[in-house]
């Protein structure tokens, strides 16, 4: 029976898993094969993404293609490599054994990549070998006899140029003939497999050597550009300076490029609110829509431009091969506090949002390294803190220049970022010396050849991020907004109320209960109330402050009015204390949920919440007291 007839009878489509070492161009091939028809989901229990897509072969088979995380060996070292191993072995729950495995290798690096193929061959499942990036190999004068290789291995071998559709036709034909030969519906059970011993790996090396001797006609010349670039980019002195300059440019772009789209989003949110308020009858529903949902969701959607621009840079740097250089340059510094250079990438993502940052830690092999990275990720200043920083800085820091043209406001903003980074390094160091002591993890990281970033890869990556972010808004944030609206609207104020309505609500009650606790760090009841919704998501605090103060008489107050209001009703010490609080406080339920999912326990999420809370309180207390002593009262 062929898959085609089976599909007609309503069976599942054939399933093919793409497996390959990192930097083999596997994802580019996947994108070319499946185009936009991709789905990203999560494997149960872990945050490793399950990327799959559908393709139609030339003779009409419908095939589900699974893009498995890159891995040098089935002996998985990190959680995402474990997924690759488990899917290939049929051990992954909720995933049946793939009907065939396509092993993607870089034709210019077969000496290293063929070992994975040999490991896969041991499993005795249908297998196709892809020699990818064949165009680059040929350009370098490398000649490989595909027939000889195929004959020696006893499996189909095809060459591809992943970026071009025409370059994958052979592969599609091979998939077709493989599916015609094998039954795709046998529900095979898990395969027996043992980790290769060091001796077994050496044997694979020898076998690869033998294969290459018979199949490689001409080795070609290695490419020179990467070496020349690395001479500068990995230079002990120039390298770190270039990295710093790149990071500076990146953050500069995040703020300046995002300004215009953020204004548009803001204008449309306000426009929508105005339209609704003139067209809707005065009612609770109207309040829920305008003050609860649109204000709340709008306050979060506004960060989408910044997040996308930051991720654009991160994806470009990753796809070009520079990111591993950044990890190389940062490794020594980070290993001083017990971190791995690889932690640099997730931590950089955390400047946009801690959640994708925490998800990116899955490439870190060692569990302790990973845990420490997860625990400090929220200390990187994410974009949700910005509205609070911007508001308070505008209200309390004079827009003067110091030291020859550097703006004081910008300097304070930089100081807040720096405090977060230094705090993170200190916390990591302390954790590694106390709770999370353990052997240092090897770095062992390939530095791939540089290449031009592939537009499709980058755009699909961006689309993925945007979707994850918007889904979060549509689910967690939306429901939180409704709850918060409820808490701050009910019960209604009594007749003849003198305070703003929120004062009498549940949120007000909670805030007022917390007030004595927050008084030593200089927070008044208005801040205490704003912190209640702010616990769910940081940026909501600005809207909540607006509500607290707008309702105290200042009709129609927007953020500008809030700036003036705050400047008059708070002391400098209080403002600085709140800024210090915001550097550390764990005010994001979604992050806590991500930590729980990633570490598989509420224990670590609770630990993170507690330690960040304590840090925030101590930092705010010290800031407040010092500011008071210096006359900031």
């Amino acid at each position, binding site marked *: 029976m062929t898959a085609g007839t089976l599909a007609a009878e309503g069976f599942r489509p054939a399933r093919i898993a793409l497996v390959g070492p990192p930097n083999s161009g596997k994802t580019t091939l996947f994108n070319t094969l499946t185009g936009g028809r991709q789905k990203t989901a999560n494997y149960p229990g872990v945050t490793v993404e399950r990327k799959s897509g559908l393709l139609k072969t030339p003779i009409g088979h419908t095939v589900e293609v699974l893009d498995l995380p890159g891995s*040098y060996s089935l002996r998985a070292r990190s959680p995402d490599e474990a997924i690759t191993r488990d899917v290939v072995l049929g051990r992954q729950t909720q995933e049946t054994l793939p009907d065939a495995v396509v092993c993607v290798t870089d034709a210019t690096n077969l000496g290293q990549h063929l070992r994975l193929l040999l490991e896969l061959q041991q499993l005795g499942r249908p297998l196709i070998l892809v020699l990818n990036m064949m165009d680059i190999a040929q350009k370098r004068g490398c000649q490989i006899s595909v027939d000889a290789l195929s004959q020696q291995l006893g499996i189909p071998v095809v060459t591809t140029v992943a970026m071009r559709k025409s370059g994958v036709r052979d592969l599609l034909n091979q998939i077709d003939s493989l599916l015609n030969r094998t039954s795709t519906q046998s529900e095979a059970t898990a395969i027996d497999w043992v980790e290769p011993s060091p001796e077994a790996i050496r044997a694979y090396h020898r076998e690869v050597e033998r294969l290459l001797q018979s199949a490689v006609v001409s080795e070609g010349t290695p490419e020179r550009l990467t070496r020349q670039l*690395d001479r500068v980019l990995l230079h002990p002195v120039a*390298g770190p300076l270039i990295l710093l300059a790149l990071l500076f440019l990146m953050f500069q772009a995040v703020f300046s490029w995002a300004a215009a789209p953020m204004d548009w989003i803001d204008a449309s949110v306000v426009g929508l609110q105005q339209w609704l308020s003139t067209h809707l009858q005065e009612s609770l529903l109207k309040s829920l829509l305008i003050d609860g949902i649109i204000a709340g969701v709008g306050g979060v959607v506004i960060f989408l431009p910044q997040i996308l621009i930051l991720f654009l840079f991160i994806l470009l740097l990753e796809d070009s091969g520079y990111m591993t250089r950044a*990890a*190389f340059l940062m490794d*020594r510094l980070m290993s001083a506090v017990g971190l791995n*250079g690889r932690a640099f990438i997730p931590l950089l993502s955390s400047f946009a949002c801690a959640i994708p940052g925490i998800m990116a830690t899955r490439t870190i092999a060692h569990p302790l390294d990973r845990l420490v990275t997860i625990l400090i990720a929220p200390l990187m200043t994410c974009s949700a803190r910005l509205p609070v920083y911007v508001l308070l800085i505008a209200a309390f820091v004079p827009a003067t220049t110091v030291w020859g043209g550097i703006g004081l406001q910008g300097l304070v903003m930089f100081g807040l970022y720096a405090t977060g980074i230094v705090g993170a390094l200190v916390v990591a160091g302390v954790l590694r010396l106390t709770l999370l002591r353990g052997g*240092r993890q090897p770095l*062992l990281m*390939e530095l791939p050849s540089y290449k031009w970033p592939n537009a499709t890869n980058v755009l699909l990556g961006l689309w993925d991020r945007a979707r994850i972010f918007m889904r979060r808004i549509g689910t967690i944030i939306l429901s939180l907004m409704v709850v918060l609206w409820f808490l701050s609207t009910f019960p209604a104020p009594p007749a003849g109320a003198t305070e703003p309505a929120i004062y009498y609500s549940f949120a007000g009650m909670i805030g007022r209960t917390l007030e004595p606790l927050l008084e030593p760090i200089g927070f008044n009841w208005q801040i205490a109330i704003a912190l209640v919704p702010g616990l769910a998501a940081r940026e909501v605090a600005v809207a909540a402050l607006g509500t607290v103060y707008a309702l105290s008489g200042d009709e129609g107050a927007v953020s500008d009015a809030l700036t003036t209001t705050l400047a008059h009703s708070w002391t400098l010490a209080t403002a600085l204390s709140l800024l210090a609080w915001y550097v550390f406080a764990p005010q994001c339920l979604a992050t806590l949920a991500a930590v729980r999912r990633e570490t598989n326990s509420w224990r670590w999420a609770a630990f993170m919440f507690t330690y960040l809370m304590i840090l925030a309180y101590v930092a705010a207390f010290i800031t407040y007291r010092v500011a008071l002593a210096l006359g900031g009262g």
Partner: protein
Amino acid sequence: MDHKASAGLAQPLSQLSRGSVGRILAVQGGEGDVERGLLEMGFVEGACIEVLHYGLLGRDPVAVRINQNMTVALRRSEAKAVLIGPLLDQSAATLLTTH
């Protein structure tokens, strides 16, 4: 940069200076699974290596070219487990130095 120092008698990879070339004599011991990790990244007996780059602080980590086609970064602590000897045959030496 066409003349490269070849490693003398056997010494650990962690002690080679930038630009030196050599051949891997042994991959041994190391902590935990370092041996298998090294083997999987291409550090295998007989492979040619060239030390390309160092980090700034403590000359750590080290970037090493293996057999012309793969560059791997590792820390000095891991590099101790890789024993390097001289490139014995001239053909391999020219192969490395011409690039």
